[in-house]
Structure formats: C-alpha cells, structure tokens
C-alpha cells in the first residue's frame, strides 16, 4: 500500500526496488515463523543425532530413555539396558557438544561480521584457528598420554589457550595510540596466522613423536566433535551459553557499528572499548568451540549470512536465530559424518565445507554490492 502510493507520488522507482521492498515486508511477517521453525528444528535434529549411529535406536525408545533420565516420568524398560548407557554417556553428550559448537561458532560469526562490517567475515579471521592448532599440536607431541578424545586431555586446554592468547596478541599488536584500526587488526591476524602455521610445521617436522599421532592430529585439524563424557560439555557449554548471553546484550552495539566506527561514536558509543569487548567475546566463543571440535569451517561464516537473508540484519534477533541455526546445522553435519560411511567416522569439517563452500561461492557471485573493509 505504502509502496504504491509512494511510486505514484514521486518519480517511478525501478521495479527491483519494489520487489525488494516487498521482500522486506515478507521478511517481517516471516520472522516469527522462522524462529518457530528453528526452535522445532533443533530438538528434532538432536533426537535424530541421538537415535542414529552404529546401532539405530527408534525415536520412541530414545524419548522414553531420555524421559526416564529426567526422573519425572518412568517408562517400563523394554529395551536393551546397554542402550541407556549408549544414549546418556555417548550419543547425547556428543550431540549436545555439536549443537554447542555450532551455536558458538555461528554467534562468533555474527559478532565478527557485525564488528568488521563485512558479511563475509569468519570467526577464525583473527588468528584463533592457527593459535588453537598450535596449541593442539603441542599437546599432541608432548610426551604425555594425550590420546585424542580422552576426557580433559591436554588438547582442548591447549587449543583453548592458544586461540585466546593469539587473539590477545593480535589485538595488542594492532593497537596503536589508543586505537585499533580494523585494517591493522586484520593484517596482524593474517600475519600471525602465517607465523603460527610456520611454527606448527616446524614443530611437526622436528618432533620424532609426530608420526605416531599424525592421523589423530589430522582428524583434529579437519574438525570433529570429540566428546564422550559430560564434563567437557558442561564446561564448554557454560562458556558458550555465557558468550551467547553477552552477545545478545551487545546486539544494539553491533547495530550501531553498522554505521561505521565514527557513526557509532556519534551515537554515544565508546567505540574502542566495545570493539575490544566484541573481539574478546567472539574469540572466547570460538576458542571454547574449537577446544572440543577442532577446526570446523564455514559454520560461522554461512549460518549468520543465511539467517540475515531470512530475518534481516538487526543483531539481537540475528544472534538468537544464528545460535539456533548453527546448533542444528552442526548437529546435522555431525550426524552425517557419523552415519554416511558407518562405522567409519568422517571429519565434520568435511561436511560443513562441502555444504558451506558452494553456498559461500554462490553468495560471492550473487552479491551485486562490493564488500568493503571499512
């Protein structure tokens, strides 16, 4: 209605803008629908992830076992008691771990894309990936029993610290005279990435133990959810949930950042402080996720981008939707990784890349606008 009255009142607008305006209208109506869909999708994917595997367990049984565990209801155990252990101690932690990692990476993606004002930014941009990888490599070659996958082996701890330390270092390097220009930050990140990869290669080449663990390391680097007890899920889960909460609080800041740093300052924001907060929050989420999953690409890049197309750019809804969407996406990818050539397990990173990379390329070619770093 409004659109039509406008086009007759003023010079006729090109047809494309009318379509776009309608798309925005549709988007407004769709938003609640999409949230409902995402809220339904997540439990369904979790259920599917728990039920599928080397031994397929019917949905009904899975539900009954889970409800029994809640101690609120009690179903008569008409199944193999081993299934209870498989579900509670193996599949559920892993599925929840995947969901948490997906949510964390997706929200970190929103934070970095919003702060850098570039819809094609990614959580690993600031050196988190190479820092985590170096930490993991050190854990692998240390003469301790750090078998990949064991509860609280050194690997997640060192990966987590490596990621956070790298980002802190990159931030410190890029800070000049009380300001941290985005371009400097990105360049420092790129250089730090290259440096840490070189150090990692050097360590692997010089270390005699490396050959024993190379396969495990390769798996870690290609990304795979490695959880088989509740503790890491609890710890990583609380970090990621806290991170998402913080991100939701900073949603309005990200909206203001879309105007550019100076525009944000004109709206009364202390830009440098919030930039620091956003970087740290994004890196905390990334580091927490990486510590139990290894390097999983594309979740943090593609999820926010896709949801921005669906529900629009306002950051609070976008963060909530990305958390839900990323969780479902990675749970599903993990499910596929475990079942496609079962009993062998493929690295999850392979699946996210197989889905994510073509989508990313499609976006690159579709986008008429040029993306700027400024």
């Amino acid at each position, binding site marked *: 209605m409004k659109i039509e009255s406008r086009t007759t009142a003023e010079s006729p607008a090109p047809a494309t*803008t009318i379509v776009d305006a309608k798309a925005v209208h549709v988007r407004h109506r769709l938003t609640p629908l999409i949230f409902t869909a995402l809220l339904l999708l997540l439990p369904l994917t979790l259920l599917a992830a728990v039920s599928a595997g080397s031994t397929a367990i019917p949905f009904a049984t899975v539900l009954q076992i889970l409800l029994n565990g809640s101690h609120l209801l009690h179903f008569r155990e008409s199944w193999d008691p081993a299934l209870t252990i498989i579900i509670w101690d193996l599949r559920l932690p892993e599925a929840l771990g995947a969901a948490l990692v997906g949510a964390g990476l997706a929200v970190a993606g929103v934070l970095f894309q919003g702060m850098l004002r570039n819809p094609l930014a990614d959580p690993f941009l600031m050196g988190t990936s190479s820092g985590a990888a170096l930490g993991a490599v050190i854990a692998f070659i240390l003469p301790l029993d750090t078998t990949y996958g064991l509860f609280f082996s050194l690997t997640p701890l060192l990966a987590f610290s490596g990621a956070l330390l790298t980002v802190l270092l990159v931030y410190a390097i890029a800070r000049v005279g009380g300001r941290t220009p985005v371009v400097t930050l990105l360049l420092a990140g790129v250089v730090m990435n290259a440096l840490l990869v070189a150090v990692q290669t050097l360590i692997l080449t010089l270390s005699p133990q490396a050959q024993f663990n190379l396969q495990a390391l390769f798996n870690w680097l290609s990304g795979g959810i490695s959880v088989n007890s509740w503790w890491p899920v609890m710890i990583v889960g609380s970090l990621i949930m806290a991170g998402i909460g913080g991100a939701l609080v900073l949603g309005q800041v990200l909206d203001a950042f879309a105007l550019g740093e*100076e525009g944000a300052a004109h709206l009364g924001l202390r830009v440098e402080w919030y930039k620091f907060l956003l970087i740290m929050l994004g890196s905390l989420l990334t580091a927490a996720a990486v510590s139990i999953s290894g390097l999983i690409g594309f979740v943090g890049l593609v999820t926010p981008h896709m949801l921005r197309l669906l529900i629009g750019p306002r950051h609070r809804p976008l963060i909530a939707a990305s958390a839900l969407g990323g969780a479902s996406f990675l749970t599903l990818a993990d499910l596929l990784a475990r079942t496609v050539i079962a009993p062998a397990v493929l690295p999850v990173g392979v699946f996210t890349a197989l889905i994510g990379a073509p989508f990313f390329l499609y976006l690159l070619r579709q986008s008429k606008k040029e993306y700027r770093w400024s």
Partner: protein
Amino acid sequence: MVVNLRPESGNAPATGDFPLLDVRHVTFGYGLQPVFFDACLQLATGEMVGLLGPNGSGKTTLLRLLSGVLRPTQGEIWLQGRELGRWRRRELARVVAVVPQELHMPFDFTVEQLVALGRLPFVGLLGSYGPQDRARVEEAMQVTGVATLAERPFNELSGGERQRVLVAMALAQQPRLLLLDEPTAHLDIRYQIEVLELVQRLNREHGLTVLAAMHDLNLAARYFPRLVLFQRGVVADGTPAAVLEPRLLSRVYGIAVQVGIVRGTAHFSVVPPGSREEQEATEETAAQEPPPRVFVMAGGGSGERVMRALADWHIPFLAGVLNIGDSDHTLALRLASRVLTEQPYAPLSQAALEELRAALATVETLIICPMYVGPGNVALLREALSVARQGRQVLLLTPETVGAEPSGTLQELPALLEQTGIAARDYTGGEATRLVEQLLQSGTRVISHPTEVLGLCAVQA
C-alpha cells in the same frame, strides 16, 4: 574589504549568557603535522552557518573535533557552557548529531530500523524502545519526508533519499546542534536543493542550530546567512557578502573567481573563470593594477601591526615566505595581495626561495618585521641583503618593546644593531646578527613604529 574580525572569545564565564558552541583558540594536528592553528568560532543557538574552505583546509577535521571524535591538541571547545572533554559520550550524542557525507551500509537495514538507531543515546544498550522512542522515530521520518519509505531497505534508495534518512536519524537524537559534513557532496543538483531546503526548514521551524561544511560556494551563499571561510584557521567570518569576496576567495582557493548577483536571484553567485577569453580579461584587469611595490617579511605574529597598517592605508603589498598555520600567514591571506607560502613548520624550500626571488625583483620597499630567525628562515635575510645592495629601500622594524628612540640613520652601528634587538631573536648561532649588521651597512633603515613605514611606502608609491 569588509571582513568581520574573528570573534574574540576571551574567557567568558561559564554561567549566564554563553554561546551554544564556543571554539577557543583550538589547534589540532595529526602527529607533528598541524591541520590548523588557533581557530576561534562561536555559534549562538538558532544560527545556520556554512563552513567553507578548499580541500584539505581542515573543515572535516573541525567537525570531527566538534562532535568529540577528536580532541584538540591545544585550546578548548565549550558546548553549552561546558568543556567538551567533560561531556560523557552518550550525553553529547543527545545534544550534537552528525550527518555524514554518505553512508556505506553493509547490511540491509530498512529506513525505519536505521532512523531508530538515532534513539540509542536515549534507549541505552540494555534498554528497549518505548512508545516515546517510537513516536520520535515516526516524527523524525515525517519531518524529513521519509515516512513513506519506512519499510524500504536503505541501500535501495536514491542519493537524496538516503541523505534525508541520515538527517532523520540525526533528528531522532533530538539534538540542539546539527553538524553536516558536505551533505550535498555526492548528490545531483535536484537533491542538493532538496537536502538544503530540508536543513533550512529544520533551522527555521524547529530552531535547530546548524553548522555545515560546504563545497559549493553558490549553494552556501544561497542557504546560509553566515559563512565561515576556513583555511587552516578561520580566515573570514560573516555574511555571504563579506566572506565571498573575490580576492579573498581567489587567494584561499588559488583560482580567480568573480562574485556577483545573477539577474533574477537574491543571492550571491561565485563564478570561476569560464572561458579563456574571460580569464584573459581578468588577467588584463589584474595587469592594469600596478603590482604591489611593498614586500613584508614576517612570521609568528611579528607582522600583524604593519600588515594591518598597510591594509588600512590601502597600500597593496606582498607577504612571505610564511608557513601555513603561522598566525601571520592567516592574516596575510586576508590582507596581502599575494602570499608566498611554505608547508607548516618546514624550512624554506628551494622552490619557495625561487618564488621569493621572482617576487622581490619588482619590489621597491622591503619591510622586515621583528621575527625570530632560525636556520629555516635565515635565507629571507640573505635575500633581503641582496635587495639592499641593489640600492632599494629596506626597512627593519624593531620589536614593540624598544622603539622609544626616534628612528634615524645618524646613530652608530653598534647602537643601531642593539636597537633592532636581533641578538635576542637569533637562533642561527650568529649568522642572522651578521646579516642584519651587513643590512645596516648597506643602508637599511631601522624603524621603531609601523606607522612610520606608511610614509616611506607612500612616498615610493
């Protein structure tokens, strides 16, 4: 030439009748490179002021200082009787709003979402939008005529529409002072008018105080009752009639212009030399005017009195070589026929030296002001010496504090040298003092009062 003097801000008390905005002797530079020196400017509530100046004159930097994004290197900016550094960012955003030149928006925000961002200083980061905020957003969109575009993505709008949306966003901040950075720079003529009409309406009907950096002199003359010409400092401040003075503009912008009232309009127009014939015509008229025969060497404020005196007596003069940012440079831009210029703080370059020699060739009287002499400008005295040796008149001004002695040539050389006070201003390790001594030996006269210069120059002319 009717140019208002810079408003002397002085130390106005913080209470009572203070201006909305008071820029007090603000100097700013990035690193060691100064952008401008000692800028003073006052804005009263309800004014609509256009800020003019060529590219790189520091207009945008001044606006960034006023919006609190940058801090002055020296001097103070007072807003509503409070120093800008003592405002909290969020408080400031409720009084001062900025409309940028243009906005690159990476995401598909709709017009309404964007305008609503203007409420952030009120809503806070944790808060949510209340009915009052929504009302303000709606009002801002109504006033700027973008309400019908509320659901459209900002990126799909035309340039003029985008600019109006940015004004709407600024209005949602309910500011008292609106700063605009060349709001029409990227617009075609229709939208330029549209945006400026809007700003004018906001100023007249809503009492919003406006300061806008403007590129287009004609639009500035048409819409702004007060103009400030900026060239690394405030060069002129007043009505369009006073500021759009052809000689002033041609010196500041470095191009000959004509200013007049085009038939059927009510405002000034500035016309650059259009065709070659026209340009030749202006050059011809310029040639008919005799070139100035007086040259002033000054620096650091030492030339102020003599330059003002010459201007009052309508004696045309050249000035140089002055560093950009030097207070004498700013004054000379206003008063002298031509100013030889050197980069800020830089020593005299070879190019400037050659320009100086060319300029001195036609000069009959050279006035040397009591400036400080260092390695950077000692070359001026060497050139002065060669002028003196050619038998032309060179006048050496003494500092104000001396000057009790009547000037004359009958005194002994050491006493004269003493009178010039050069020893105290010599930072070249004696070379400047030797040069002054040689100047005195070559017939240079020591003058203790600037008005004496007038007689000597007038005789020559």
